[in-house]
């Protein structure tokens, strides 16, 4: 439990730093660190597979691409301060309201004692595979349609057309 508190504090801190960091590269690195902390939470929940996949997919692939793009853009120049004080105020009020609602919701929550059947195999690859391929077969297969659409779209939008300017 103590470790959980430590990890949670670290997660929140790094997540806040994502927002507050001045340099976008630092933001990305803090985000990567946040993903690590979340992977740590997965380990505490005995979900090793999710931990590994979280690191491989998010920290290892997606954030690298983020970093890639940000480095290419060179955001250190012209960062326009576009937000007016009104937007900031409205954002703060809205976010604060949401926060209050969630805090209230969690305060009323009765966690119980975890009545669900949680065994040593819960969260392991084998049990996850059984769930994915038996209970959730249909969404699992149909997600491939989603990825396929995204892939076709990315190729279609990113393809260089004849006569277009080559960089």
């Amino acid at each position: 439990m103590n470790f959980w508190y430590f990890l949670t504090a670290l997660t929140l801190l790094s997540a806040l730093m994502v927002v507050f960091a001045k340099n976008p590269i630092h933001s990305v690195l803090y985000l990567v660190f946040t993903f690590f902390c979340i992977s740590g939470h997965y380990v505490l929940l005995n979900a090793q597979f999710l931990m590994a996949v979280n690191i491989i997919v998010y920290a290892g692939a997606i954030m690298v691409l983020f970093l890639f793009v940000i480095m290419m853009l060179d955001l250190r120049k012209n960062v326009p301060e576009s937000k007016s004080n009104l937007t900031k105020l409205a954002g703060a009020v809205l976010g604060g309201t949401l926060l209050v609602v969630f805090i209230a919701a969690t305060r009323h929550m009765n966690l119980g004692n975890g009545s669900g059947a949680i065994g040593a195999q819960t969260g392991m690859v084998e049990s996850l595979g059984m769930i994915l391929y038996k209970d959730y077969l249909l969404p699992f297969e149909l997600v491939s349609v989603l990825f396929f659409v995204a892939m076709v779209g990315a190729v279609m939008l990113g393809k260089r057309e004849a006569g277009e300017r080559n960089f």
Partner: protein
Amino acid sequence: MEITSTLFAAKAIYIGLIFAITLGVAAYSTYGERIVAAWMQDRVGPDRAGPFGIFQPLADAVKMFMKEDFIPANSSKWLFIAWPCLSMLTALLTSAVVPFGDKLDLGGGIEMDLQGIDVNIGILWVFGIVSLGVYGILVGGWASNNKYSLLGAIRAASQNISYELAMGLSIIAILMMTGSLSTKVIVETQQNGAGFLSWNIWSQPIGFVIFIVCAFAECNRTPFDLPECETELIGGYHTEYSSMKLGFYLFSEYINMFVSGAVMATLYFGGYDYPFNEVVEAQFGQNIAALVGVGALMGKALFFVFVFMWVRWTLPRFRYDQLMNLGWTGLIPISMFNVVWTGLSILIPTTFNLPAWASIVVSWSGIGVLLIGLIIYHGATSKKKTVALAH
């Protein structure tokens, strides 16, 4: 309590040992590299420091420490310092799940796996850590505040991401054969049966070729060493690095080589398995058999390190577009084919009640099918190309 503390001490010693061995192997790989290079180019190579120059790595280390530690102006200082360390860290972390040997009997009924930790997700751990290794290069290159470094870093990132996909797909074929992600189980399934004939290499020839090519790319070794291509980018991502920080980058490359050699041995060459394993175990007992197994794994891994060096001094470097073409239009489709064909090679023997060797026949026939397919495809596309040229 007694059992756990003995086990804990043994585990700690083991981990320290693996750490030392990995670093030692990496250090002597630099020496080995020069010897191999000299041999291939018909030169003498290092021969001054000690007999046959075997103290060369020590001399190099002293040189590295003594050099001026330079941090470029306008660079992100913290990131600049932290990231070579991260490179080193990720390189070392990978060896945690590689099973270096079978169980060791510590007496008193305590048995210890010669493996850092046998996690349920074994091979995914390797994969996750490897995918993090790219940050060391990417951020280090960016923090240098140098165009060439940045270009090298970006090349490294795109290269690593591209080749990770094919690598993952080739691992999937292995997982289909063994039915587990745990590296220990992967080795154990290769131990059953007729000696080295049950190693995965026999049923996964295509997968192994893809994996070794991707391993080259992930380690940024020639012919995939574009990130540090000196003709185009001076020193690539480590242009601005000097002293031991540069040393860390170079060192992590050699560690990566050794570890990926060990992983390849684990996945495709039976890990710590060796012929007549059972005979040795019956004759000399469990501990000796296990230690011979460690030797076998080391031998296999070092052989792969040699292959890395051999290729480095044999093949020229790819061009960047060739590299991307090979990764995306070559390796990924082939590895997808490999996944499908592996499924076939598992399915055919079970459905038709054929003996186990039938699956090996099917998997090798996959190479034939692949070659025919490639020839047909090549014929079709090259015709199109000539038409396009005629326009």
